[in-house]
């Protein structure tokens, strides 16, 4: 047995044992043995401590997860499953202002074939013909015969019964995949607002197209300002009016007068969002936001507001409305001619073109253009749908144009823009762009852009109240509510002239007019005079009654109290 001679270079821990090289000398085996044992023992303890530490850490972690973390609440993974996050692969839901679903995605099965794996083509085709009687089987047969293909859609959007039936065919070349399918539970009712998607759920129209990117990201539901209940009432009354007057189309918009949120936007005819390709152009055309019209005398409200705001006209003054008014080569006439002077309220209640023209001439063409521009009537609307067009107005805006625009001919805008501008005029004078997105009611209202003073706005409201009480808007006088507004009847332009047999009948008003909460525009395209309207198809006879009925039905839904008439005032 040779004496143990430790090699200092191999004793990594030697220095830590506190022993010098002198103490381990050859010829002292007892010491060398003790020394070796001490090193071994130390290593063992060190290993034990490391293992113990690791196991203790695992034990502590287990106890932490099982007891402490559990006591704090469910594990994160459970939270993830139960509460979200949003499904990033699923297109976001679209809701109305109270959370009713307007559009959502569900997963549906699609059947597809791998032609190279089909065992028995003839029996497969026979089985598919039985399951899908409407299928073009010869076309499918030609595609399935191509063995070079590995993927051929058989049918998308299967019902569970169809899926089971295809499964029962037992053909290994047939398979299924899950696909998203867009569902529109309210169907045609909100089609012009919500729009539609293609088969791969990419937005093609309405808010579906406008918000396509954010909807694709699958974030929180998009909550619109639309109220489906209100939308139904507005659509029902507009449809009844259109049917009664045998009109091909119409539009109606209900706005919050202060926030400019759109509570209802109806364009008729509407379309089936599940099958837009089969719908006519007339159905797909959004008459509330995309089509532009010369809406006639409703523009006199803007003329009046500009005249009062600029000081060109005083509310208590009278203007000579003896006709006709000759401007350049045009003669301006009134529907109800009057010789002599007429006060401002009567000019509006009788809808005098000459009176409006003279007010506009005092304002001047530049100020008029500037004012209409401040109301958003000369630029495209900022509304959140794909279907927005640019208003048309004269490039050469001179005296003649100033006159015709004063009573609503010459500027062609969408009904939504006119309603939006009207809201600014009656709400105290602040313009806020119309929006289809519900605003947070707890958030402060944005400042908007002041376009007229509160005093001017109050004067305009006073005049509009008078128009309904005493003038052409009498048929809009809703039972139990104070409304104010203006009628409009405009001949439609046709081949460089105006067609007297094709009109746009409009009523634009606010309720309650003493403190407007809502603005409503009803427009009917080319109404035909009926017996009950004594041969008239004007805004006062066509659109005003619809306005009245809509106000009477929606005001209780909107929580508006009945107005108790003051003493001496007729109800």
């Amino acid at each position: 047995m040779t004496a143990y001679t430790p090699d200092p270079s191999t004793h990594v821990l030697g220095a830590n044992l506190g022993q010098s090289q002198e103490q381990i000398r050859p010829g002292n085996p007892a010491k060398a043995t003790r020394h070796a044992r001490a090193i071994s023992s130390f290593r063992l303890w060190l290993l034990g401590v490391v293992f113990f530490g690791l196991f203790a850490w695992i034990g502590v972690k287990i106890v932490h997860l099982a007891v402490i973390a559990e006591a704090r609440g469910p594990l994160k993974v459970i939270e993830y499953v139960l509460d979200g996050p949003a499904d990033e692969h699923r297109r976001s839901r679209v809701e109305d202002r109270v959370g009713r679903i307007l559009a959502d995605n569900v997963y549906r099965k699609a059947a597809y074939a791998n032609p190279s794996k089909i065992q028995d083509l003839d029996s497969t085709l026979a089985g598919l013909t039985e399951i899908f009687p409407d299928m073009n089987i010869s076309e499918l047969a030609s595609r399935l015969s191509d063995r070079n293909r590995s993927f051929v859609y058989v049918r998308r959007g299967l019902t569970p019964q169809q899926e089971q039936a295809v499964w029962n065919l037992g053909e290994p070349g047939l398979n299924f995949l899950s696909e998203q399918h867009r569902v529109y539970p309210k169907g045609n009712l909100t089609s012009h607002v919500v729009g539609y998607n293609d088969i791969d759920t990419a937005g093609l129209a309405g808010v579906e197209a406008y918000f396509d990117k954010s909807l694709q990201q699958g974030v929180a539901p998009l909550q619109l300002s639309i109220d489906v209940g209100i939308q139904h009432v507005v659509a029902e009354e507009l449809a009844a009016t259109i049917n009664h007057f045998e009109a091909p189309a119409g539009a109606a918009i209900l706005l919050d007068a202060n926030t400019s949120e759109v509570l209802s936007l109806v364009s008729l005819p509407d379309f089936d969002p599940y099958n837009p390709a089969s719908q006519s152009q007339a159905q797909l055309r959004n008459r509330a936001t995309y089509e532009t019209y010369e809406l006639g005398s409703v523009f006199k409200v803007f003329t009046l507001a500009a005249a009062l705001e600029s000081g060109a006209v005083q509310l208590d003054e009278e203007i000579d409305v003896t006709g006709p008014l000759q401007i350049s080569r045009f003669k301006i006439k009134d529907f109800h001619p009057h010789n002599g002077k007429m006060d401002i309220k009567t000019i509006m209640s009788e809808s005098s073109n000459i009176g409006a023209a003279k007010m506009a001439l005092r304002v001047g063409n530049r100020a008029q253009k500037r004012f209409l521009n401040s109301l958003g009537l000369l630029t495209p609307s900022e509304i959140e749908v794909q279907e927005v067009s640019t208003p048309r107005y004269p490039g050469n805006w001179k005296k003649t144009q100033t006159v015709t625009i004063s009573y609503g001919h010459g500027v062609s805008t969408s009904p939504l823009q006119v309603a939006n501008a009207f809201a600014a005029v009656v709400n105290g004078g602040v313009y806020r762009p119309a929006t289809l997105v519900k605003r947070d009611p707890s958030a402060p209202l944005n400042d908007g852009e002041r376009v007229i003073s509160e005093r001017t706005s109050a004067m305009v409201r006073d005049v509009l109240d008078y128009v309904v009480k005493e003038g052409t808007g009498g048929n809009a006088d809703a039972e139990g509510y104070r409304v104010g507004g203006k009628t409009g009847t405009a001949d439609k332009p046709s081949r460089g002239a105006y067609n007297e047999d094709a009109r746009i009948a409009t009523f634009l008003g606010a309720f309650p007019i003493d403190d407007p909460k809502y603005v409503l525009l009803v427009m009917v395209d080319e109404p035909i005079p009926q017996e009950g309207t004594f041969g008239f198809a004007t805004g006062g006879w066509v659109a005003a009654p619809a306005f009245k009925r809509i106000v009477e039905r929606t005001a209780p839904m909107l929580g508006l109290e009945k107005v108790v008439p003051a003493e001496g005032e007729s109800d």
Partner: protein
Amino acid sequence: MIRVSYILWLAFFMALIIALFQVKYTVQQVGERRDATIQQIDETKERVRKLQLEWEQLNQPLRLTKLSKDFLIDFQEGVAGSIAPVEQIPVRPDNLRPVAFLTIEEPEQAFTAEALNSPDNLHDVGSLRPIHAPDLLNALISQQNTVVLSE
């Protein structure tokens, strides 16, 4: 002594290893259960989503209007005056205030003297005054199971 400590250490480590394996397999099982639960939750969520959409479809205003006309006799939309501040709503006169319900579970027993005198059949809703069944005899002639009484 050293051997004993070795044995103890060995036992300790064995126990730890067994515990660790136990935990590992338990975690695996929990993971599988979790995956199954997640799948089940996803499927349920999808079903709920479809049911919500069906509900929305069934609640199309046009359909509700038709159902209301067909089945809700005298049910009308709100009109001017339907909305009013609470303070404007008149208080119900005292003589019309319901003071008690009389409920008799078995109609055939309703007109027996025992049933009418049984306190079990009386449910005083307002505790305004004690109810005596014989006083209600006339009201019961309407042969309704539940009678609302007025003072």
